[in-house]
């Protein structure tokens, strides 16, 4: 009996873990933009970084159900860690990434014990509070972080000593995209593993998850730490590719934006963060062109509308529509009616 169900779970998970054609096309397209849009590479670079940041938030919000208003703390810490390191002579980008990830992971691990206490509201406040404390430290410790002026004069060495960062952002985008892709593959592997499955059961019903023997707190600590490390890497990428770190990386705005990105793309499946990042940046770019100062208003409106319509219904409807039109094209109209469950 138990062997059967173990085999079942294994089969289901490995089926979910298979790469679909659409996914492969998605990444091929992302790679193609490197050559197709040579004049927008800096913009694409930002999309890749925000996408990675959103994926990291999705790991805790979408898969483990932890609401965070201060995820920017890890992003900012990563950015400052990479920036300060480079400024003091450790110019190798990959070492910078690793150390930024480690720093953010340590902070994530240490604060996870604070965050995991209490209800949603307490979590919100604690995450927000941690981000604010970091912001305050970065602001006051001007000798280290440059304070309100930002951290200037970062020069990053070529990657592997070969690929130099150029002003068009070719190397920057290729670098960010590669890192994002690799981390995405790991995250994807993680969420279709038994570990990911246990996270989802914790999200849906922590009490029951505990009752069937899942070590709830330990799992949450692990995923929170992993997510923090991801956010740290995203921050480090931003610092290295823009060669500048400002206080802005730790602002509340940053944490709120990434929530918005994730909501636009859809919570609880990894591509949501990436798609959300594309939509968000394009939207921001278009709106900022029309009203340079007041684009925030429209972003706010989008957010309100999404919530009023219901984010789940939003994405479910699109997928249902998609399945239905595919079915119709194949000459089998109205076969699919129920909203399918997203798996990756």
């Amino acid at each position, binding site marked *: 009996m138990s062997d059967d169900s173990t085999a079942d779970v294994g089969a289901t998970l490995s089926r979910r873990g298979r790469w679909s054609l659409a996914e492969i096309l998605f990444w091929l397209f992302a790679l193609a933009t490197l050559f197709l849009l040579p004049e927008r590479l800096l913009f694409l670079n930002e999309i890749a970084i925000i996408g990675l940041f959103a994926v990291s938030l999705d790991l805790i*919000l979408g898969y483990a159900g932890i*609401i965070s*208003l201060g995820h920017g703390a890890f992003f900012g810490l990563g950015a400052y860690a990479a920036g300060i390191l480079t400024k003091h002579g450790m110019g190798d980008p990959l070492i910078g990434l690793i150390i930024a990830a480690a720093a953010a992971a340590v902070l994530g691990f240490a604060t996870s014990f*604070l965050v995991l*206490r*209490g*209800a*949603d*509201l*307490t979590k*919100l*406040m*604690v995450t*927000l*509070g*941690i981000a*604010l*404390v970091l912001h*305050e*430290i970065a*602001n*006051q410790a001007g000798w280290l972080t440059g304070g309100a002026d930002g951290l200037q004069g970062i020069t990053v060495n070529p990657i592997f000593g070969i690929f130099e960062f150029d002003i068009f952002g070719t190397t920057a985008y290729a670098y960010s995209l590669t890192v994002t892709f690799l981390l995405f593959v790991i995250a994807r592997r993680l969420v279709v593993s038994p570990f990911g499955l246990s996270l989802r059961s914790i999200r849906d019903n922590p009490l029951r998850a505990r009752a069937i023997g899942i070590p709830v707190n330990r799992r949450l600590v692990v995923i929170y730490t992993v997510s923090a490390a991801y956010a740290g890497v995203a921050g480090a990428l931003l610092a290295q590719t823009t060669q500048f770190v400002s206080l802005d990386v730790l602002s*509340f705005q940053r944490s*709120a934006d990434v*929530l*918005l990105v994730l*909501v636009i793309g859809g*919570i609880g499946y990894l591509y949501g963060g990436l798609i959300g990042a594309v939509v968000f940046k394009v939207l921001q770019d278009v709106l900022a062109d029309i009203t340079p*100062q*007041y*684009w*925030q*208003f429209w*972003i*706010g*409106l*989008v*957010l*309100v509308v*999404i*919530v*009023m319509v*219901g*984010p789940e219904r939003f994405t479910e409807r699109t997928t249902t529509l998609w399945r239905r039109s595919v079915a119709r094209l194949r000459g089998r109209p109205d076969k699919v009616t129920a909203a399918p469950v997203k798996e990756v």
Partner: protein
Amino acid sequence: MLTILFDGIAYGMLLFVLACGLAVTLGLMNFVNLAHGAFAMAGGYITAVLMNRFGVPFLATLPAAVIGPALIGLVLERTLYARLYNRSHLHQVLFSIGLVFMAVAAVDYTMGSQQQLIQLPPWLQGRVDVFGVRVGLYRSFIIAVCGVLVVLLQLILTQTRFGIRLRAAVDDQRVADGLGINVNLIFAVTFAFGSGLAGLGGALGAEILGLDPTFPLKFMIYFLIVVTVGGATTITGPFLASLLLGIADVAGKYYVPQFGAFVIYTFMLVVLVLRPQGLFARAR
């Protein structure tokens, strides 16, 4: 020393008036409303516009600063907030962040991004000596107004029929509904009332806290601290938390300016970790 204490108390009182509406929506109704500061900002701007453009005296603008945000609050509660009471906290957070963004940009668009200054009437300016302590007249005025409000609120909540119904509705919505209490109406009125109080706080605080389009974001954390640290089962919890926060903030900025707001955030984290239900509340 005593002057700092006095200023801190005035600041704390002000924070209480600003945040007590939130104590009800967030603390009692369990709705995460990050947009509370937007209502306060509305009150502040109403006062500023009435005074600077139409020459209305300061005191006469205060009723408008209460009624305006209360009406906005009522409309928003009926049209938008009411639908989100039963939704997840994530939705509430997103929704209210969206509202804040819209409010900030809209005010920036209509009023400009500069600080709004208001000219206090002469009888509220200056400081006087009371038993050797330099006391600001305006701050005394704030303490008086807010003190009266605190007593009134406490009385309303504990002594009136409305207060009893509100507490019943908050404790158990379904049972209250079953007993014939119009829960929706109570929530709507309470929300409007809280928004109105925030508006009053914004108007009174325009001189002390400063008023510009980023007001809701700048003070959001303070309101949240008041509610979470104070706990929300009574009026006294948030009130004591406001006083504590006000005094700590003023004293901190005076004695250890290099730490900035660091002290307060750390204090909040410690309280939240040790007593997630709030400093002055009993666990439910």
